[in-house]
């Protein structure tokens, strides 16, 4: 056992491990000495060997990448199985093995290629733009659309992730998103101000609306112990109906309309575009990234964020250290709701400009999945949201180009998350080496927690 970890050079490989843990339960000192002894006996471990070791062990990065990979394989199988030509070719694999195999691969690659060119960059459009000097909008449009789609996911996902880190399960992002967008909409059409004041006010309104909606499950959980999973899901339906209600009459309904469509945001309440009016990417995206950065700082550097993390990792330790669990519960729900409210506001003020029945779609649920995929870290959520937005945006292109239904992308998304939620399964499929329990698992609390 090394009594002075600093003096021992060998355990360096092990010491980096806890930094990667999901729950931030780092702690480098105890229990690591054994590993140090093992490596210490062999002396210097070459860099390539260390890297290789990292690739075959079940650390979060490897598991995440393998989850995505496995889900894409699964999606590929689905594409092949549902494709008539591939099934036909496979039935004649005896006489034309080459054709069957190449069709199996090209069908899948065509589909995934369409997703990529529809959401990131289309090589043909790029080539055309370079040779003719025109059509640059078409080159950047897919990326712009991906950013637009990712914006609400980032905001709501970060909110859910903060909840997860604190040990509360906020499934109410959908309702909080609607609440935030209702308040933002009201400020956006009923108040007349110059853009420099109006837009910040709209942003604040969205945040406040979401935070207020988040306070309800927070207070109920802290005061009465009502489980947040049930309360937040019930509130989702309450806010859904509230939206339908306010769309049915003054002051929200568009005058002269019988449809359930709201008034439009005034031009002073709309987010400015970032790169000219043809690309839809707007200030909302920048705000989403900035909020993710803020959340990252908050969780890693601030006192309150620290008490959030401690409460999530070990509620008893938090209580012993004098952190008020009810205060943490109420605050974390308010903050989680604030992010969700901003997500609703971001799409409203960025691209939509009005509310209609069913606004928000399934962003509330997707927020949970991107939070899980991003391992509940703000920057992880940003990447996860970009990936999911790519699948969503590119899925439409795939549908047009290859005729494969858009729902395939949701199947891929769901499959990714099933693997992420079950790291042990991934570990077993790929025979990864264990890094010790706890570093990978994501846990919520039962009814009494």
């Amino acid at each position: 056992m090394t009594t002075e970890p600093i003096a021992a050079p060998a355990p360096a490989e092990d010491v980096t491990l806890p930094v990667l843990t999901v729950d931030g339960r780092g702690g480098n000192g105890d229990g690591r000495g054994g590993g140090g002894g093992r490596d210490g006996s062999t002396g210097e471990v070459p860099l390539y060997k260390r890297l290789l070791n990292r690739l075959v062990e079940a650390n979060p990065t490897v598991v995440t990448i393998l989850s995505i990979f496995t889900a894409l394989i699964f999606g590929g199988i689905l594409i092949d199985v549902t494709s008539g030509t591939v099934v036909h070719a496979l039935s004649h694999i005896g006489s034309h093995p080459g054709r069957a195999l190449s069709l199996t691969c090209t069908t899948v690659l065509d589909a995934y290629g369409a997703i990529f060119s529809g959401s990131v960059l289309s090589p043909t459009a790029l080539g055309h733009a370079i040779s003719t000097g025109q059509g640059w909008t078409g080159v950047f449009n897919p990326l712009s659309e991906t950013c637009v789609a990712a914006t609400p996911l980032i905001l709501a996902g970060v909110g859910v992730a903060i909840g997860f880190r604190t040990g509360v399960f906020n499934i109410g992002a959908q309702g909080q998103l609607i609440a935030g967008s209702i308040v933002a909409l009201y400020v956006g059409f009923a108040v007349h101000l110059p853009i420099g004041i109006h837009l910040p006010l709209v942003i604040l309104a969205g945040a406040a609306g979401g935070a207020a909606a988040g306070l309800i499950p927070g207070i109920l959980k802290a005061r009465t112990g009502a489980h947040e999973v049930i309360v937040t899901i019930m509130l989702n339906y309450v806010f859904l109906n509230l939206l339908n209600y306010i769309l049915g009459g003054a002051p929200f309904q568009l005058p002269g309309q019988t449809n359930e469509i709201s008034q439009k945001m005034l031009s002073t309440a709309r987010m400015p575009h970032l790169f000219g009016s043809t690309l839809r990417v707007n200030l909302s995206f920048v705000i989403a990234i900035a909020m993710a950065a803020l959340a990252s700082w908050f969780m890693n550097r601030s006192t309150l964020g620290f008490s959030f993390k401690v409460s999530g990792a070990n509620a008893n330790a938090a209580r012993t250290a004098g952190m008020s669990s009810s205060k943490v519960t109420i605050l974390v729900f308010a903050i989680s709701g604030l992010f969700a409210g901003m997500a609703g506001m971001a799409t409203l003020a960025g691209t939509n400009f009005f509310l209609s029945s069913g606004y928000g779609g399934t962003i509330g649920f997707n927020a949970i999945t991107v939070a899980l995929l991003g391992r509940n870290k703000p920057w992880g959520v940003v990447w996860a949201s970009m990936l999911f937005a790519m699948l969503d945006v590119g899925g439409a292109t795939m549908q047009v180009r290859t005729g494969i239904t858009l729902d395939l992308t949701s199947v891929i998304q769901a499959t990714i998350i099933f693997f992420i939620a079950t790291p042990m399964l991934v570990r077993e499929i790929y025979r990864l080496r264990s890094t010790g329990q706890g570093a990978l698992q994501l846990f919520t609390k039962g009814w009494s927690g």
Partner: protein
Amino acid sequence: MSVVTATLPADPGPDEQEIRSRTGRFVSLRRVRGMGIFLIGLAVIMVLPFGLKVPSNLSAIFTLSEPPSITVPNLVQPVRATSIGLAIACAIVGVILITRKSSRGSYLIFSFGTLLFLWSFLVWVGRGTSLNFVSLLAETVIYSTPIIYGSLSGVLCERSGVINIAIEGQFLAGAFLASLVASATGDVWLGALCGAAAGALFGALLAFLSLRYGADQIIVGVLIDAFALGLTNFLLQEIFTDHPNLNSPPVFTDIAIPGLSKIPVLGPALFDQNAIVYGAAILLVVIHLALFRTRWGLRVRAVGEHPTAASTVGIHVLQIRYTNVILGGVVAGLGGAAFTIGSYGQFTSNMTAGLGFVALAAMIFGRWRPFGGLGAALLFGFSISLVSFIGVLGVNIPSPLLAMAPYLITIAVVAGLVGRVRPPGADGVPYKRE
């Protein structure tokens, strides 16, 4: 009641006045007083908007006869006088609650007070017109049925220590497959069987991921819900838009029980229902007896309370959990079938609308006992059928606001009325053999 719970030390809770009532529910006297004040508040509503604001000559007529039962005269109630009379009774009940020294039986008294309020509300809703009270009750039973199945599914899973948030997804899967199979084959029984199988499949997925690989049960449950919603929507688009005949299943026909269905008011509501409703009643009794009167039930409860101890005496913890989670899926799948072939017929997108979670709330309210959740399930069923009734009567309340009622009641039940309940000791805790 149970051997296992009785030997565990009672959680004293933070409240000094907290006492443990005979049935094991923790109710503080402060909460009892709160209930009393709440009832007096209700009485005020009954006096003012329901009573004095209504013209004195209006009456509400409750129709009390439906075909199978013997005919009874309609109940004609002058709105103002009835409301004020009920308000006085409700206020008295409230005062009784406030002055109580013991909390035992307070929920019963409180339920009586809320029933008085609901009666008064019905009289107000039916003012100047007639209201088919029997059909309201019958609808209540129909709407309650899936919730009863759902809460039974929750009881089966959680008594063995696995949290089943996936009930909603199992509902949807069951509803979908039941509709599809019953439409294709014309056989409702086969439809119900396949609905149960669909629920079992998702139950097996939950069991596999959470028991075999130790994934978090709540996260996996929520993912199954999302997955089932996506899958049924996808299949709805892919199959039913092109083949609408595959989504027009026959429904279970009502079977009137001879004799009992002739009882006025309650007869048509309780004893002239379809097989799925009767199935819920039978399952209630069967699961109750199995859990509390058989060796199997004792083992299940032991596994749910203290798996290590159960394992020590030779009980296969994981085997029991697998069985129960899959059985829970079967029950929830049947509950899903109740949505389609048990009542409406057609499958529609997200037709369960969160009732799987309502069922969980009912289960918690019923303290993880089969019959405990029954009352809550009937309350939710009543609020849903009342909403549809009010819509038909054309009362001047916007329908989205009415549609919120069941969800708000659920929140109120989970937050306020439940009191401190103790879930099974190992509920939601993954088990690893040592």
